[in-house]
């Protein structure tokens, strides 16, 4: 167990170092930041000063060490575009993205799980078939098209909900939250639905498949033989065993939801990290891009590691296999 944990942590650290290396290589070799920050007619002396100020005159190895130590402390240099520290920019934008992803995940679970359970229990029903077809279409519709349709229907035609921004936000220390105001909550609805919708189909299919599997098992058959009512069997026995893998997948999906938030944030002009990143990509603002890369990778690696470790705790078979393979 202990060896496994250590090995898993070392592996994660290695992946993070590799990501840091890519991020650093972007910094070092893609374009010349001095050219993009200064006007074209800047003198050689001005260029030299800025170069020294950014630390670009040091050897590559020194720069990489600086980059890693800086990144570990959350320092990613200065944005080429906004001329402000990247860490400040990200700290401003992080709460918006995390609140969006959190709400979308809740929405996806609240809608996807019941849909999955229903389609599993009533396999041949009309509504089940309808839900299946809708989910197939849902996978094929690009998320930004979903977002545009939501805006067209609920903002332009019905004029019920706002189509851009976060509404009013309250400041809790450095964390700005939209959960506490009416306009903040209203602004959250459409983006959260758009981001969550793809996950809804995923969760629905997963719950349905798992549920069908569990419903066939002896354990459910014996529960029925004991004379338990359908509801107790379906929800007490079957659903509870289904939820474990579902929660794992949703956990793993959180990372990709942070990435997909880029699209949602563009459609709804949501002032989060994704919007910051997409602006950075179109301006080739390398410090912001590499900071985003490192941060999102950190989320990914951490989530993956936690899930792996949890599995190890939950599923005793893994430790046996592990010993066998060395």
């Amino acid at each position: 167990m202990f060896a496994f944990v250590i090995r898993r942590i070392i592996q994660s650290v290695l992946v993070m170092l590799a990501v840091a290396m890519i991020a650093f290589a972007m910094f070092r070799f893609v374009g010349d930041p001095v050219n993009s920050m200064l006007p074209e007619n800047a003198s050689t002396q001005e260029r030299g000063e800025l170069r020294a100020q950014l630390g670009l005159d040091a050897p590559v190895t020194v720069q990489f060490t600086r980059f890693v130590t800086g990144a570990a402390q959350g320092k990613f240099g200065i944005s080429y575009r906004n001329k402000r520290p990247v860490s400040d920019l990200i700290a401003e934008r992080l709460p918006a993205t995390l609140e969006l992803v959190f709400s979308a995940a809740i929405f996806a679970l609240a809608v996807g799980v019941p849909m999955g359970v229903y389609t599993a229990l009533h396999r041949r029903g009309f509504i089940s078939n309808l839900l299946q077809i809708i989910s197939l279409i849902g996978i094929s519709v690009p998320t930004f098209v979903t977002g545009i349709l939501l805006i067209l229907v609920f903002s332009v035609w019905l004029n019920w909900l706002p189509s851009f921004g976060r509404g009013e936000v309250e400041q809790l220390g450095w964390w700005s939250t939209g959960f506490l105001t009416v306009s903040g909550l209203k602004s959250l609805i459409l983006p959260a639905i758009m981001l969550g919708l793809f996950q809804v189909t995923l969760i629905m299919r997963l719950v349905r498949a798992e549920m069908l599997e569990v419903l066939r098992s002896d354990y459910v058959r014996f529960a029925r033989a004991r004379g338990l009512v359908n509801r107790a069997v379906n929800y007490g026995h079957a659903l509870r065993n289904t939820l474990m893998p579902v929660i794992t997948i949703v956990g793993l999906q959180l990372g990709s939801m942070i990435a997909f938030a880029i699209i949602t944030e563009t459609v709804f002009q949501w002032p989060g990290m994704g919007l910051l990143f997409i602006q950075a990509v179109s301006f080739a603002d390398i410090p912001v891009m590499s900071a985003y890369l490192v941060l999102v990778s950190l989320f990914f690696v951490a989530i993956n590691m936690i899930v792996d470790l949890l599995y190890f705790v939950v599923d005793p078979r893994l430790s046996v296999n592990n010993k066998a393979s060395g």
Partner: protein
Amino acid sequence: MSTSTPSKSRVNAFLDSDIFYNFRKSRVTVVATIVTLAMLLSAALAPWIAPHNPFDVATLSLLNSELPPSWAEGGDPRFFLGTDGQGRDMFSAILYGSRISLSVGLVSVALAMVIGVVVGLLSGYFGGLVDAVFMRVADVMLSFPTILVALLISGIARGALPREMHDSAALIVLVFAITITTWVQYARTVRGSTLVELNQEYVLAARLVGRRPMAIIFLHILPNVLGPVLVISTINLAMAVLIEATLSFLGVGMPPTNPSLGTLIRVGNEYLFSGIWWVVIFPSLTLVVLVLAVNLLGDWLRDTLNPKLR
């Protein structure tokens, strides 16, 4: 198939085969195939069938701008799907747009396939360090969402290019980004199939008669691992079109002067609040239908050719 008699019998054999029977039985697949072929054809023939040339500024007139579709009130029969803010015919713009979207998709799928298949074959056959390195890279790439990888690569490519080249090189950057993002799946799958084939007797026999490794890999193993590659290619075409559209929609793909479907949707999105919905709805609909049709086709191929895949 140059002479008529053998090709005819081959066609007959195909028409009699299980695969074609399966195909005919699945009505959804037949429709999806017809839709896909129609879209490919109309995209390829866009310059000849489009009623207007959307890139010829001389034929545009602001008097024709923002006209609704021809069947709606105030519509003009010359503009079947209406016009955009510059008086451009939407139907023609969509034809040209899907031409660009499909070109990017097809080229990047072809490139990714070649790279992925070669890497997969070599990794599987030789194993060792090359294999370890490639598969680690594949692991890391697969653990991130494709759209994020594609965004990063196009961002890096843009950073490496001077700013004034961004628009003219957009097509190449897109193909590059999508190829780099999607070759991994081929490599993974082909490597797996190669490992299985290595244990087959025909490979052993080829080795015994002294064929060189390269001949064994490309003449003996390659034909036997192509089934899954076809399936992945179909599904990846849908994915490539989707990635292209997303990047263009996000503003890091095709420029508005040479729009793909994604760019058209991005431009149309800006008109959303002025009530001219057709500028955004029709390109979106085209994209959805295209992706859905190709996906359905891919699903059917997967089930038919290799029920065990996935």
